[in-house]
């Protein structure tokens, strides 16, 4: 049995080294050039943490442990190899759920065998008071991460409708459940009965489920980041229980990373975190536009040949990709289009809105997959002023992030959201499946009806392939 105080200093140093390597792993991501070295450091850190743990415990079940690592590792490796880049948001949500579940299992194991974790009070033979709170919180956060991520996965993967599901009195139910969880964790300090521990676990699974079902598909970037943050806090709470610095450092890193990403996403939508969590956004998408019911407004419809001709004549084209590009897997055709335009001497750039897609950085990964050089891809604030000088803005599968109503219409649900000023370009080509469906916010977009806009109504990938054909001859 291991008393925390007896951990030799070399072991603590090893865990500290693992923590520092994890910090360096994130630091590497400040630029694509250093990112792969950073990732390797993360791997080394993990190897150190695992090896140190196995080395310092009287391992009675090494074959089983190695078997478990091989099985899990094999599954993970195969998934990582096979997954399509467009499915990355689902994959990340699924991975979050595993971290959450692992935290719950570790918490449960610590409760059943506290001696192994060195959290028993030598005098009373009961679990330390502080450990009970840490354990309770760790299990609760882990369970919320698990069930929340499962719902996020189902929504992102299309197994469940992306539409918000609204229960009556859901705020009351949610707040009541949260209060019950916190109250029980507090009570756990005075009474170590198993029923309290298991009730906390069960209620946390339920609240994770309840919290995510009312949140619509378009708010998923925030949800995925938020669950990322939770998985970190769960690891940190378990780190407190074990007095393990590698776990605490990592938990804090991941927790703040997810929190910052949620903040960036909320800011990019001009929405408060609370309003996202409260859910329901996009519930009546398509029914109530800002300008009232929109019927039969005049717009110009163009063909692929028109678009190819227009872009061939242009000096500069800025491409604005959105979730629609991911859905129709148009990124490869799009890169081909870009290459042909560049061969014609056209300057091609890509403009990415922070909330384009279903997770932070989603569009960047897809463009990178299609071999678009990352120095052609720009963030909103770096490129927005260039639309005014651009000949063509080519919008593909994005909508709300280009809507000028965000600047002009105070009654619009997206008012205040920073947008890409595609309307400033000399002409706008807007690839969209049909005129019917508005964006996630259910708001009509003035850009559709401008004189210099040409609507290209088709599946994004088919349309781009047609344009490529048009450019080729």
């Amino acid at each position, binding site marked *: 049995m291991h008393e925390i105080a007896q951990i030799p200093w070399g072991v603590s140093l090893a865990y500290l080294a693992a923590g520092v390597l994890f910090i360096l792993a*994130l630091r590497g991501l400040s630029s694509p050039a250093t990112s792969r070295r950073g990732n390797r450091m993360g791997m080394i850190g993990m190897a150190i943490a695992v090896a140190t743990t196995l080395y310092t415990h009287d391992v009675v079940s090494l074959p089983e442990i190695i078997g*478990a690592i091989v099985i*899990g590792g094999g599954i993970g490796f195969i998934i990582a190899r096979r997954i399509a880049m467009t499915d990355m948001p689902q994959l990340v949500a699924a991975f979050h759920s595993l971290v959450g579940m692992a935290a719950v299992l570790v918490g449960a194991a610590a409760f059943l065998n506290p001696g192994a974790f060195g959290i028993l009070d030598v005098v009373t033979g009961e679990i330390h008071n502080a450990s009970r709170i840490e354990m309770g919180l760790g299990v609760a956060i882990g369970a919320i991460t698990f069930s929340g991520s499962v719902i996020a996965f189902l929504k992102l993967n299309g197994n469940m409708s992306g539409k918000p599901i609204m229960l009556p009195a859901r705020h009351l139910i949610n707040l009541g459940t949260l209060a019950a969880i916190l109250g029980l964790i507090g009570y756990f300090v005075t009474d170590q009965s198993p029923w309290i521990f298991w009730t906390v676990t069960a209620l946390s699974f339920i609240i994770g489920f309840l919290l995510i079902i009312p949140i619509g598909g378009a708010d998923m970037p925030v949800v995925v980041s938020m669950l990322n943050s939770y998985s970190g806090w769960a690891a940190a709470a378990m780190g407190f229980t074990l*007095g393990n610095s590698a776990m605490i450092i990592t938990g804090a890193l991941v927790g703040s990373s997810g929190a910052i990403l949620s903040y960036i996403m909320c800011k990019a939508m001009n929405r408060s975190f609370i309003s996202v969590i409260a859910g329901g956004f996009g519930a009546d998408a398509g029914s109530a536009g800002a300008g009232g019911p929109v019927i039969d407004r005049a717009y110009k419809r163009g063909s692929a040949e028109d678009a190819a001709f227009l872009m061939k004549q242009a000096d500069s084209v800025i491409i604005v990709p959105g979730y629609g590009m991911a859905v129709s897997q148009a990124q490869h055709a799009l890169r081909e289009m870009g290459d042909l335009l560049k061969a014609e001497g056209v300057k091609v750039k890509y403009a990415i809105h922070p909330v384009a897609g279903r997770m932070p950085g989603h569009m*960047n990964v897809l463009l990178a997959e299609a071999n678009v050089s990352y120095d052609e891809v720009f963030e909103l604030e770096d490129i927005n002023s260039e639309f005014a000088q651009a000949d063509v803005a080519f919008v593909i599968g994005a909508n709300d992030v280009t809507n000028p109503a965000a600047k002009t219409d105070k009654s619009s649900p997206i008012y205040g959201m920073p947008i890409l000023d595609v309307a400033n370009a000399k002409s706008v080509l807007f690839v969209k499946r049909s005129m019917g469906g508005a964006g996630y916010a259910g708001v009509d977009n003035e850009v559709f009806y401008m004189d210099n806009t040409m609507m290209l109504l088709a599946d994004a990938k088919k349309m781009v392939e047609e344009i490529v054909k048009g450019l080729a001859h």
Partner: protein
Amino acid sequence: MDFISILSVFVLACFVGYYVVWSVTPALHTPLMAVTNAISSVIIVGALVASAEAGSAAAKYLGLLAVVFASVNIFGGFAVTERMLAMYKKKERK
């Protein structure tokens, strides 16, 4: 470690995390999520303790299951991050 030193490590790490993550370029936010996913599976340390120590058969099996889950994440997370990062290329000018 006593509670206060653990808490100090935690609070300082939060600050480090705050500054490090703000310096991550937005283009790499998806790999950031994948790699934070992988490293948060350092929770495997707890799972290993549970499955390694004698004392409770139930705890051992819960621990082993947690080892499986965390390993999926560790190998999957790092591998998928590596795969994504390999795609970020700068094209040589012709």
